[in-house]
């Protein structure tokens, strides 16, 4: 099962290595990873997507808690979180088909951020499902290059007291 872990860590050199090497050492594959500083500049948030059964996940979460630089770990409930990824698609778009690609971008409420002679680059944000659907459609035109961020997520505001 896929889990989205949100890990609050001290913003210090080497902390990401400590976290990821722990996963590697215990035989976990990280499906996606995103790291950035939080509202407090001394803290960073690492958002990780991992596929694991509950028992091994519990073990690695406990091991993660033991890292001195780790402050808080949340295993976000998919029903109670908001999550986004960002993808840049560079899509084949010769002048005669450019229009169609722009239409797809519009349908998904995404932005064209670069126009080349034979290509368009689209910036798309959304959930993994939306982006997968979009990728599927764009594949028909030929995706020349693609870059994606890891998933970032927060618990929904309604969960707060």
């Amino acid at each position, binding site marked *: 099962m896929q889990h989205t872990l949100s890990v609050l*860590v*001290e913003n210090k*050199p*080497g902390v990401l*290595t*400590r976290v990821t*090497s*722990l996963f590697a*050492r215990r035989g976990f594959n990280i499906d996606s990873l995103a790291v950035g500083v939080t509202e407090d500049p001394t803290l960073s948030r690492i958002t990780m997507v991992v596929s694991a059964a509950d028992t091994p996940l*519990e*073990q690695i979460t*406990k*091991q993660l*808690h*033991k*890292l*001195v*630089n*780790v*402050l808080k770990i949340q295993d976000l409930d998919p029903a109670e979180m908001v999550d986004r990824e960002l993808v840049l698609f560079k899509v084949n778009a010769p002048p005669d088909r450019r229009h169609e690609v722009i239409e797809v971008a519009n349908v998904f409420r995404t932005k064209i951020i670069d126009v080349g002679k034979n290509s368009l680059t689209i910036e798309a944000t959304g959930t993994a499902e939306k982006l997968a659907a979009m990728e599927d459609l764009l594949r028909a035109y030929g995706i020349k290059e693609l870059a994606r961020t890891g998933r970032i997520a927060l618990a929904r505001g309604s969960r707060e007291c």
Partner: protein
Amino acid sequence: MSERITGAQALVKGLEAEGVDVLFGYPGGVVLPIYDALYHTESVRHILVRHEQGAVHAADGYARVTGRPGVALVTSGPGATNTVTGIANAYMDSIPLVVFTGQVATSVIGTDAFQESDITGITMPITKHNYLVKDAADVPEVIKEAFHIAATGRPGPVLVDMPVDVSRGEVDFVWPASVHLPGYRPTYRGHAKQIKQAANLIAKARKPLLYVGGGVIASGASKEIKELAELMQLPVTCTLMGKGAFPEDHHLSIGTPGMHGAKYTNYSITETDLLIGVGVRFDDRVTGKLASFASKAKVIHVDIDPAEIGKNKPVDVPIVGDAKHIVAAIVAELRKSGAQPRTEGWMRVIDDWRTRFPLHYHTSTESVMPQHVVERIDALTAGRETVICTEVGQNQMWAMQYHKALKPRRWVSSGGLGTMGFGFPAAIGAQAGRPGALVIDIAGDGSFQMVSQELATAKIHDLPVKVVILNNGFLGMVRQWQELFYGKRYSQSVLPQDCPDFVKLAEAYGCLGVRAETPGDVDQALEAAFAFDGPAVVDCRVEAEECVFPMVAPGGSIDEMLGGIPGGPVSEMLDDGLLEEVWE
């Protein structure tokens, strides 16, 4: 008030502030500023080892007998990488260490400079935490944190990497009053409801068993364990790491569990209806096949490390926290409820097993039996303040089986990592930590040869440790496995018994060397060594192909054991109706 000093001087002041009295180390290029700062200090005794691995093992031995963090100091590159085994050993056994390594200057880190190694990267998975200090101004805070992390919670090794320019740099030295570690808050007090639930189970159990490990030693909870055991008349098994946590001459002590545990110990675990694990981690050498380990029992597990709870064995009552506090709270709860012991019948069953299946070896009038040597060590040191260290392999298992540990912190053995060559340098550290004690390393000829150069350390620093080599001319445990599981093909496990001549080797270092070749020699040789005012080596030429029995085959259930007095599995050992009689 602050004073302007160098990073190296700050390090030494930090050691003084932490009350460090002994430092094990070996100098080299980038730690010269630190060694220069040490030159002027009187409060810290520096013990110069002959190999950096020895420094870390010695610090480890020191920590095990004193309960205070052991400290080592080495140079960068090879000095640092030579500490890796020692650090891994301490990590596996939860021993508090602070290891200082030198590092090349910050300006050249990452350039493959001379004697550069990424020691913080290398030791990340085997330290509780580590630091690369980038600024002399950080030195006081880092040292304070390093000692705090090493010694609190589940103890463990912490490494501090000191680039040479940081040692040379300047700092306004102020010793921090406290540490600020928002991500590090060990839990000490157990959950009240869980404690109550544990007490309820203990009060009701008919066949309870206390399973005690190194966490009880680390926590200093021996007194509380004894109170609990005596109050409820609970049989107690101490693991290799927990040896000494409960006196082994006590009638409730039922020996060490696991692969080379006594049959009665393993039968008791298999039959128990309530396993009370305190400061243990259900290690595979203890549990054997997990599915049949204490499979009839409810499990209470007390440990300071939440990650240990439920890791190997599902637990009914998990209690995270400090053993001392929690066991005391369970005792208080039991007293309050007026619980009475119900284990008379259970103890009769165990005593019956104990009588029928004691540890056993064939005595000989011609050969020195290794088990006999261990028994004689115990007999000849009775009443003396003694610390027993071991190497790893058969020597360790015989020491575990036949030495009776009576007090905590008098038993020093490499548990988790199983490090050959640990015992002797650890004994040196133990002797530095307990100058008045008789410190004995029960060694094998293989293990001792990995670290025999430390005889110089023992001699020069007046650390009169006694090395008793159970010299069988083999890597004995390897040979035993080859005998049992590899058709007696002794592939690369033969070490000639007379090479080296251990007596001459000892003498070459100015130590006493004595030899025991027949059973009649043993007492005299041991007495000579124990009476000698300095380090001594006793070369006991023991029966070469003796095996450690009983033995659980790897992956087997612990009640199905090879060797020893025939018997088992436990289901077949209850046939005299005693259990039924007892429970009816």
